[in-house]
């Protein structure tokens, strides 16, 4: 590890730590903070980072790679299918119209048609990194604008694959043993062969995901070493990315595919929470690098061209987005967030422009201009959103009536999390599912998880007491958490975590014994379910019936006994810490119980059923009521 590496790390991390909190304090959001930090440490201001900015960019792009892996992970086929209309409708509309407009404008300005088309495609991209980060920070992911934004971004991210495949066909010179730095398998192949290689690589990732990654993760999970799992997760991401680089493809897309393949596996949540912190840091680094790489020299040399380019791009993109939003019936507020949020050119444009330049479709000068403009639009986006939030919406905003809709959106996701899917939890899961409620299930026995998944349950491997796992399982949006873990200690620590971190969640807890129940009462839980209560009483009821009791009377006696026992539990728990009172109370409770039992026997069927008790009617001889 060289001193320069440490030095660079010091600068970048310090930049993040200094600028992001300031930006957050000023209400600007973290993305803008990273950008400003990047610009300031960049070669044109402080010059802490100079020429190596580009290398850092390459390194930091790995943040984007991880982000796409995570987006892929979140994209289950079922939810993708549910959103298909939104994704393809808004996606095709946005990309098609933006590409067409950019193409027309550039063609008028004397670009070749190939260059204009390639640029148009690249410029129609928006930045998934910025938008998703911003939406999440503002808590807008579940709103209409958030969903539309996600749909458009997803469509763009997916369409990068065919675009990369098509670009070689646009290359003027056909074959080129080009000068570019990194060698790849694709170099020197004709356009159609490159397209084939690309499709083959994509298929390889899908197959590897299914037949290599999942068995590997299962094997690792069985060893039960948390850091090893993290290592395996990183290994998967890096290996996929590396494969893609070898065949000369975008690593981000490869990992996106890998993510989608793994989204359906039981390791989804565990992978998400393991990769998340790495992604966060690297993505921050990426934003700093974008800020630092803005070529102010170029801007100073061609101020008018750059200004026109940036302004024109944002205007074109925003217009198309606004119309798209209108067509998908977003309200004005939501549409403004959608429009301005996606109005920048995204990080994939860097990838595409690099490829375009490598294929010699576009001159180096214009490639630099386009990349510069892209970086500037990215920096401008958070400012636009801030302006929208501060000045436009307060004036023109229709104070929205989204409350009801939002409740629906939450309901649509899984409202229940079941932690622990042993014999206790699985019964709950089956019962809920039989009634159309699908729960997210967490269990940390990978063998059991495997079996249950084969039976069609939606079970995830993970340690439910980990905060990040709970977050991934949707604890922020769920309504109920059912703690059904076998070990009372783990259950209790889970309950503590939930009460601290997700106070809105209603917690329902399995308790093994009376003593566990006391601990849970002390922890402030009121929904406690003792394994040893209902089933025992049911057995008791059946025993009474076997002895000749009428069934209804026995059942009612059982119902009342459970009620009595639960009341007694709460009463005793309050006095438990006071030893003397506890003993006294226990004695008192036993006495009460004895009395109750005696009374139950006397007033068969149950203590209170005077209305059905013929002896109580002895008085009724006066004829004031029809006889029974």
């Amino acid at each position, binding site marked *: 590890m060289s001193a320069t590496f440490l030095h660079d790390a010091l600068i970048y991390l310090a930049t993040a730590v200094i600028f992001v909190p300031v930006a957050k304090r000023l209400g600007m959001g973290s993305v803008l903070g990273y950008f400003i930090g990047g610009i300031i440490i960049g070669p044109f201001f402080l010059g802490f980072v100079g020429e190596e900015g580009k290398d850092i960019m390459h390194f930091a792009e790995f943040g984007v790679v991880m982000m796409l892996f995570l987006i892929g992970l979140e994209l289950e086929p079922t939810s993708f299918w549910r959103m298909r209309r939104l994704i393809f409708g808004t996606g095709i509309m946005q990309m098609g119209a933006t590409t067409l407009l950019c193409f027309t404008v550039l063609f008028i300005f004397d670009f070749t048609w190939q260059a204009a088309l390639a640029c148009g495609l690249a410029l129609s991209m928006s930045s998934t990194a910025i938008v998703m980060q911003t939406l999440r920070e503002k808590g807008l992911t579940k709103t209409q604008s958030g969903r539309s934004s996600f749909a458009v971004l997803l469509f763009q991210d997916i369409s990068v694959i065919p675009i990369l495949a098509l670009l070689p066909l646009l290359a003027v010179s056909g074959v080129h043993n080009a000068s570019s730095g990194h060698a790849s398998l694709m170099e020197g192949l004709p356009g159609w062969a490159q397209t084939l290689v690309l499709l083959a690589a994509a298929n390889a990732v899908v197959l590897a995901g299914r037949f290599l990654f999942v068995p590997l993760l299962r094997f690792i999970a069985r060893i039960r070493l948390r850091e090893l799992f993290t290592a395996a997760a990183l290994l998967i991401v890096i290996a996929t990315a590396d494969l893609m680089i070898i065949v000369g493809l975008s690593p981000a897309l490869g990992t996106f595919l890998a993510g989608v393949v793994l989204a359906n596996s039981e390791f989804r949540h565990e992978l998400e929470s393991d990769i998340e912190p790495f992604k966060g840091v690297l993505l921050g680094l990426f934003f700093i690098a974008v800020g630092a790489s803005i070529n102010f020299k170029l801007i100073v040399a061609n101020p008018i061209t750059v200004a026109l380019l940036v302004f024109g791009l944002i205007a074109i993109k925003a217009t198309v987005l606004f119309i798209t939003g209108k067509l998908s019936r977003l309200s004005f507020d939501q549409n403004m967030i959608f429009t301005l949020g996606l109005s920048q050119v995204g990080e994939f444009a860097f990838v595409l422009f690099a490829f375009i330049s490598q294929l010699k479709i576009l001159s180096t000068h214009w490639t630099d201009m386009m990349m510069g403009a892209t970086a500037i639009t990215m920096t401008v986006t958070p400012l636009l959103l801030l302006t929208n939030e501060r000045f436009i919406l307060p004036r023109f905003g229709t104070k929205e009536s989204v409350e009801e809709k939002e409740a629906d959106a939450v309901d649509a996701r899984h409202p229940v999390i079941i932690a622990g899917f042993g014999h206790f939890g699985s019964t709950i899961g089956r019962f809920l599912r039989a009634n159309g409620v699908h729960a997210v299930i967490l269990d940390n026995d990978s063998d059991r998880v495997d079996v249950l998944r084969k039976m069609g349950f939606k079970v995830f491997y993970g340690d439910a007491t980990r905060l990040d796992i709970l977050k991934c399982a949707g604890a922020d949006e769920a309504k109920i958490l059912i703690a059904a873990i076998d070990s009372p200690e783990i259950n209790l620590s889970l309950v503590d975590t939930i009460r601290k971190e997700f106070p809105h969640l209603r917690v329902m807890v399995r308790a093994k014994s009376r003593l566990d129940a006391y601990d849970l009462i002390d922890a402030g839980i009121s929904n406690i379910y003792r394994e040893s209560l209902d089933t025992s009483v049911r057995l008791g009821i059946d025993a009474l019936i076997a002895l000749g009791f009428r069934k209804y009377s026995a059942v009612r006696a059982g119902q009342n006994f459970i*009620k009595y026992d639960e009341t007694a539990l709460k009463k005793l728990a309050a006095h438990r810490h006071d030893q003397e009172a506890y003993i006294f109370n226990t004695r008192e409770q036993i006495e009460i119980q004895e009395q109750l039992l005696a009374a139950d026997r006397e007033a068969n069927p149950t203590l209170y059923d*005077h*209305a059905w008790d013929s002896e109580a009617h002895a008085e009724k001889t*006066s004829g*004031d*009521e029809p006889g029974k």
Partner: protein
Amino acid sequence: MNKILILFAHPRFENSKTSRALLKNIRQINDVTLHDLYEEYPDFNINIEREKKLLLAHQILVWHHPLYMYSAPALLKQWLDMVLEHGWAHGSRGNNLKDKIIFNALTIGGTKDAYTAGGHNKYTISEFLRPFAQTAALCKMIYLPPYAVHGTHLLSPSDLADYARLYQTLLEKLAQNDFDVDAMSKYDYLNDWLTEEMGANP
């Protein structure tokens, strides 16, 4: 001021448009307690002591339920059997409900015409309600004619809203003691009394 207790019994409340419409605005009235029996006692295990306390705390009681097989859903019958104990609600020493006012609020699938001597159901609603009337009498309560929503399957949303408004007005008038038992008893339905009243002094 009178306190009103609605003893509501509907085993499929979630699917009942009519009942939901009727009860939607009820919770906002101050002196009304909505007591949802199927929600409180899903196991039919009625807490009799609690029910007695509730009854004592209110002056006007409503048996609010759909008409099932010309009577109330099973839990309300269970409630009658269990709660109205001899020696408490009736009998020579059972005077706890004396002079309280009670009536049925009904949601009925059949139309008014179906409940006539010549109609499909042969008897009128008040004839079908005789067990309730006599139970009230036995407990020394004052029994009023029913408030009824007929032909529930045929109602448009605006019809429902009208019925709901009328029900709310009824409860408000009862709470404010703005009624006369003798005048009310002349009608078959409280609906008719209300329309007449509101027509007289709108």
